[in-house]
């Protein structure tokens, strides 16, 4: 019996240490973030990547083409598949080897690839709001000179989000702007004139009218989490807000943020509370429990896909203002970009693809038509494909509507992963009644200062 224990104890130690600590070793992949939360892209297996690389190498040798490995997710990956043939025809010396994975899985893998120098892709799509540490890594190609001709054509802030120390380390791809879309039939039934929804006070008053019958006018994400805090932030940005200043320091006693916490909380009674990306959200849209959404423009595409029977029944209005005197400013959820690791063996071929996707008419059109991704290259917003009306949304053009807006002030995404998690926690706190919105913001601000040391 004693002997058995002597065997069991080391076995248990071995098992525990193996399972837990080994997972923290630097070269070991972290638990994969489920892609289902933010992307529908299929996940490659870890083993698939070396296999793909081997195939690429042999194909490269055989055809003397530059085979570029591209990491991308969801919609952008679909766009790359769609343009692959045309791009390779235009560039016969380049072949695209697309590797799809979820956005956060991709960011984790890119982090490991850049830090170890192993299995580095030639081009990678990146999430802009968490890009700063990557830009500062010294492991990415400086695109400043190559992109010089295009730099001024991008939307305000998008270039700054992918720059560090005056150098450009990625090309902004798309930006998700705020949109207020609504169900025309429900609004008509309740006598709500969408043209009169000029401010958020108007929206709340209309929401109260609907609420009497249990119909909600917007949705809010609960549990808030990182995605829910992005939704709050979308409203905050449209108000000209910032949590950090241009020097990366937390703005102290941020009254605007506190007020926006209060406003977000007050909307709770007329909102449909749902976990992020829950399938039930589309059920609420279909059965009329949810009469409108105020969120980012990616939702326009999701509603079309998830609730196709609503075609022609929905429309959108300009994003409401915070008061009648305020300028018309849009919120932003974030956006993506394409970067080129410095270790790529094919910098020219990689740049050709990035340039094609981000600033050429063909690439931008494919981004919009295939992926509903609105280019960050504002100079191209007049392209016919972008200004075309959409029958699903009552023959309206979202891009045309955007042209009436002033550019929002630059937004400083500092330590954003941590900041958005903290925001989510304190928004939840006020939602469950553990604190007032003012207390919740004060606690959030204090925690952001303490945790980020900014």
């Amino acid at each position, binding site marked *: 019996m004693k002997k058995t224990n002597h065997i069991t104890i080391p076995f248990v130690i071995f098992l525990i240490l193996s399972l837990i600590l*080994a997972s923290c070793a630097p070269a070991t992949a972290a*638990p994969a973030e489920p892609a*289902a939360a933010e992307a529908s892209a299929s996940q490659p297996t870890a083993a698939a990547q070396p296999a793909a690389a081997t195939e690429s190498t042999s194909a490269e040798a055989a055809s003397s083409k530059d085979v570029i490995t591209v990491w991308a997710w969801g919609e952008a990956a679909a766009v790359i598949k769609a343009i692959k043939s045309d791009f390779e025809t235009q560039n016969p010396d380049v072949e695209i080897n697309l590797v799809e994975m979820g956005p956060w899985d991709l960011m984790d893998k890119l982090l490991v690839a850049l830090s170890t120098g192993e299995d580095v892709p030639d081009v990678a799509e990146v999430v802009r709001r968490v890009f700063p*540490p990557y830009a500062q890594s010294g492991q990415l190609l400086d695109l400043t000179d190559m992109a010089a001709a295009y730099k001024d054509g991008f939307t305000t802030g998008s270039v700054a989000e992918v720059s560090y120390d005056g150098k450009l380390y990625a090309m902004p791809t798309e930006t998700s702007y705020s949109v207020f879309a609504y169900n025309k039939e429900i609004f008509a039934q309740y006598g709500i004139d969408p043209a009169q929804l000029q401010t958020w006070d108007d929206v709340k008053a209309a929401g109260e009218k609907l609420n009497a019958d249990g119909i909600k006018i917007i949705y809010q994400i609960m*549990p808030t989490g990182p995605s829910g805090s992005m939704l709050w932030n979308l409203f905050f940005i449209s108000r000209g807000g910032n949590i950090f200043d241009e020097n990366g320091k937390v703005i102290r006693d941020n009254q605007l943020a506190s007020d926006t916490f209060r406003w977000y909380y007050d909307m709770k009674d007329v909102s449909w509370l749902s*976990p992020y990306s829950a399938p039930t959200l589309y*059920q609420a849209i279909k059965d009329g429990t949810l009469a409108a959404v105020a969120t980012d423009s990616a939702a326009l595409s999701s509603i079309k896909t998830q609730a196709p029977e609503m075609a022609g029944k929905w429309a959108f209005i300009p994003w409401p203002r915070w008061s009648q005197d305020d300028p018309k400013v849009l919120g932003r959820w974030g956006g993506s970009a394409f970067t080129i690791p410095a270790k790529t063996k094919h910098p020219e071929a990689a740049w050709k693809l990035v340039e094609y996707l981000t600033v050429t008419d063909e690439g931008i059109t494919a981004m919009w038509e295939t992926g509903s991704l609105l280019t960050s290259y504002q100079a191209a917003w007049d392209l016919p494909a972008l200004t075309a009306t959409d029958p699903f949304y009552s023959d309206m053009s979202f891009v045309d509507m955007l042209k009436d807006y002033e550019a929002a002030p630059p937004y400083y995404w500092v330590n954003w992963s941590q900041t958005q998690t903290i925001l989510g926690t304190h928004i939840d*706190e006020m939602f469950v009644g553990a604190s007032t919105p003012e207390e919740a913001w004060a606690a959030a601000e204090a925690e952001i200062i303490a945790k980020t040391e900014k």
Partner: protein
Amino acid sequence: MKSQRIAPHLFLLPFFLMFAVFWIYPILYSFYVSLTQWDVFHAPQFIGLKNYVQLFSDPEFHTAMANTFMAAVVYIAVMVSLAIVLGLLLGLAQIRFKSFFRAAFFLPVTMSLVVVAIVFGMIFSNDFGLLNVLLSGLGLPTFNWLGDPKLALWSIVALRVWRAAGYYAIFILAGLQNIPEELYEAARLDGASEQQIIRKITLPLLKPMVLYVIIISSIWAFQLFDEPWVLTRGGPVRSTLTMMMYLYSYSFKYYQFGYGAAASTVLTAIILLFAFLNLKIFRTSEI
């Protein structure tokens, strides 16, 4: 003679070399990393025990630890009890279609965790969720299963129990099948009731298998990650934040690998302690 003494060691050497390179080295390196400040792109800077000091003074870490511990203890207690009951039921001679039930019990663990979490997200949904529809159909009050900080963790534990109980019931069944039939026959001849047989023969002889199930399931219980990550992202109000989520976030989301490694070391110590306590209790007590 000397070469005969060396030969077994040489045969074992490849394993120990591999073990040292691929297991021991990463573990030791991970501990070293926990003593540094490291953003992964630049060289780690040695800072001694600062990460540990910071860790134990962080209320978020205390919350993660408490959530993990509560979820693990309840999960292990409920899941193991249920697995024993299911295992005993499967072992009953009167039960028909045993193969079907074995396969059915095993099925949840074969399903993708993400898919399971999404399906349970729909079951737990506040407005259209199956659970609330059933409750309201019965005239009972409904609950915000994932949105209420008092319920969210237990909803996730329920999901985990559903997923694992059948799997471990198969282990229990295997343990039952190893108990010699003669013991039961002898007990019956001596006039023992079915309850007495279970209490005096089945459960004591199942002890090694139950211990195995507890240790294995507790390792995974303390590593609770996927379900809360998909369903709640640690919310609401950090009520489902676990230590694994905490260390993953600090390492891969906030680029504080040294700090994440320190959290990982603490988690390991807790699991070791838990495992040793289990060994100690099971060694000295009867079920």
